[in-house]
């Protein structure tokens, strides 16, 4: 047997229970033994008293002859004491089935006259009572203890066997349990090792039971699923980044190629270089947006959160963006701005709003109406940025939060598709939720902040 089997928790538990069970059984048997033993013995003494009383009654009534008669009668009956003795004042036996003894009063133990030893080599003894029924006339009544002893031996043997059986069951059960436990642990370990070795899709088999190992297995599996989704996301993101950076880099390369082929004057070179610098700045700003999203998602900014007057932020941004919207013949209105405090980072909250406002300006046709509402509700601050532009189709409303995701019709407007990803990261770090809905027509973004204590 493997040593580690004995070290398992289930085996240890079984062993402890086995020991406790044996101990309890021993105590119980001991108590039972004592009770039965003493009950049996008092029964013997009680019988002896009755027999002696009958003998005395006979003697008192009609003398030694009658007493002898009573002794003989009683010996013939099965229910009374099985050993009786009646001796006269001279110390000689008058009646009974015992040899004469030196008279002793009270509870007495006498050897069995046949002197047969029992199986265990112990001498049989008679337990009984001695008494003078008249001056000098001694009587004894008692029973052989062999019956009791034999019963007790049987009982003890039965208890012994039961205990042995229980112990065997306990050990066997413990081993079986531990085996099962170990086997399941081993599959878990092996699965984990397989995953570490690269078989990422492996999962721990779930037996469908409700025990703690099954729960552990399903928890581990759920964790693995979560990790693999995250890894899939990361993989997706890096593929996207590579893909989406290729476009501006390709454009940059084309431009440089054209310059080197066609530019002849210093002025032409100058113009081309300026454009290349602008392109490069575009690429760099994609990088810094990506870094910023990553940094916000990491959550470190939470450490510097403080109370921000969101209403002031909204008002000042509306002031700043009013003219910008106007230049596009849009209208930017803030019909309802209730005072609202939010725990957060002012800079990030501004950026979130700016991205949403700029989307409403950039992805809509002229003369669009943009409204920002801020209300304090029971649940916390709730902000709505709505426009009456073309909106986003229901099927795309989740996808636009992905990095680089842009709608087909939005491709002509400048942008990199990172604005809403940043918004999502910022709402998330603030414990807020963002929901895009149909403004019929247009888009409505609702951001619900948690209550700020």
């Amino acid at each position, binding site marked *: 047997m493997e040593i580690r089997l004995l070290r398992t928790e289930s085996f240890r538990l079984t062993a402890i229970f086995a020991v406790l069970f044996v101990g309890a059984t021993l105590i119980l048997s001991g108590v039972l033994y004592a009770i039965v033993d003493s009950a049996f013995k008092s029964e013997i003494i009680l019988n002896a008293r009755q027999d002696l009383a009958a003998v005395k009654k006979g003697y008192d009534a009609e003398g030694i002859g009658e007493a002898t008669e009573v002794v003989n009668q009683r010996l013939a009956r099965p229910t009374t004491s099985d050993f009786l003795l009646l001796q006269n004042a001279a110390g000689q036996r008058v009646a009974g089935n015992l040899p004469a003894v030196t008279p002793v009063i009270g509870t007495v133990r006498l050897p069995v006259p046949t002197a047969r030893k029992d199986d265990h080599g112990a001498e049989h003894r008679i337990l009984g009572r001695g008494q003078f029924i008249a001056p000098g006339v001694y009587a004894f009544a008692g029973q052989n203890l062999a019956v009791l002893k034999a019963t007790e031996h049987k009982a003890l043997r039965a208890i012994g066997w039961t205990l042995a059986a229980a112990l065997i069951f306990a050990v066997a059960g413990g081993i079986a349990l531990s085996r099962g436990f170990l086997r399941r642990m081993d599959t878990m370990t092996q699965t984990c090792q397989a995953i570490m070795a690269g078989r990422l899709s492996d999962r721990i088999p779930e037996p469908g039971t409700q025990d703690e190992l099954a729960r552990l297995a399903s928890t581990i599996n759920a964790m693995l699923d979560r990790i693999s989704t995250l890894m899939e996301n990361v993989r997706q993101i890096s593929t996207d980044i590579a893909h989406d950076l290729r476009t501006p880099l390709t454009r940059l390369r084309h431009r440089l190629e054209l310059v080197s082929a066609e530019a002849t004057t210093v002025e032409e070179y100058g113009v081309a270089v300026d454009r290349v610098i602008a392109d490069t700045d575009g690429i760099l700003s994609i990088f810094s947006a990506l870094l910023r999203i990553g940094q916000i998602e990491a959550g470190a900014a939470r450490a510097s959160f403080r109370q921000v007057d969101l209403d002031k932020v909204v008002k000042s941004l509306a002031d*700043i963006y009013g*003219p910008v919207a106007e230049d596009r013949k849009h209208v930017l209105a803030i019909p309802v701005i209730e005072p609202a405090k939010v725990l957060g980072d002012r800079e990030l909250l501004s950026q979130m709003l700016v991205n949403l406002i*700029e989307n409403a300006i950039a992805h809509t046709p002229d003369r669009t109406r943009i409204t920002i509402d801020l209300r304090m509700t029971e649940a916390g601050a709730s902000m709505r940025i709505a426009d009456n532009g073309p909106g986003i189709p229901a099927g795309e409303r989740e996808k636009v939060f992905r990095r680089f995701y842009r709608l087909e019709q939005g491709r002509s407007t400048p942008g990199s598709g990172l604005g809403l990803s940043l918004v999502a990261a910022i709402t998330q770090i603030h414990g807020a939720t963002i929901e895009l809905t149909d403004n019929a027509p247009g888009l409505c973004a609702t951001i619900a902040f948690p209550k700020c204590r």
Partner: protein
Amino acid sequence: MKILLIEDDDDTAQYVAKGLRQSGHAVERVRDGNDGLALAKDNAHDIIILDRMLPGMDGLSLAKQLRESGSQTPILFLTTMGGVGDRVEGLEAGGDDYLVKPFALAELIARVNSLTRRSQRTGAEQQTTLRVGDLEMDLIARTVSRHGRLIELQPQEFKLLEYLVRHEGRVVTRTMLIENVWELHFDPQTNIVESHMSRLRTKVDKDFSIQLIQTIRGTGYILRGN
């Protein structure tokens, strides 16, 4: 102007030093934070350009120690650390301006010029009226007039004009305006500067022969009295 450049990256240092020298500044450059602090404590420079990640001693501690030693030399942080909170950290450590790499040389030079002038201007912070040419700004009544004629400005326009006036004769970049006038510390996608500037110019310059605000192509704006 004498500029102390504390920067460990050789390429950046070369690029920065060359640009600054071309615009008429003297540049002394050190690589190591400890050397930088020792030099800065001599108070022989008009401005310090400081990287954040440096061998020897990081830029933040350097700035803190320099300020503790009583030096008032303006510090411009020039760093790749542009995360949320990094700028605030830099300013709290004693920095006067914070520019994140990558940056345009014109941007750096505009900021350096802005800082050197600021350090020269002493005790002038309490002015209640600003004057440039025939333009007058009353900072208490928040009114603007040109040639005695009152000009109505929106609060945002007033703030913008005040910034330009305070930087009279010096180039202010778009980013400087976005950061200092509107207090946004990221790059907006839309032309907020252009939108506000065109409104301001219509009000301030349109009816006058002398145009106070001029565009510096590709960089920003400048306000001049004549």
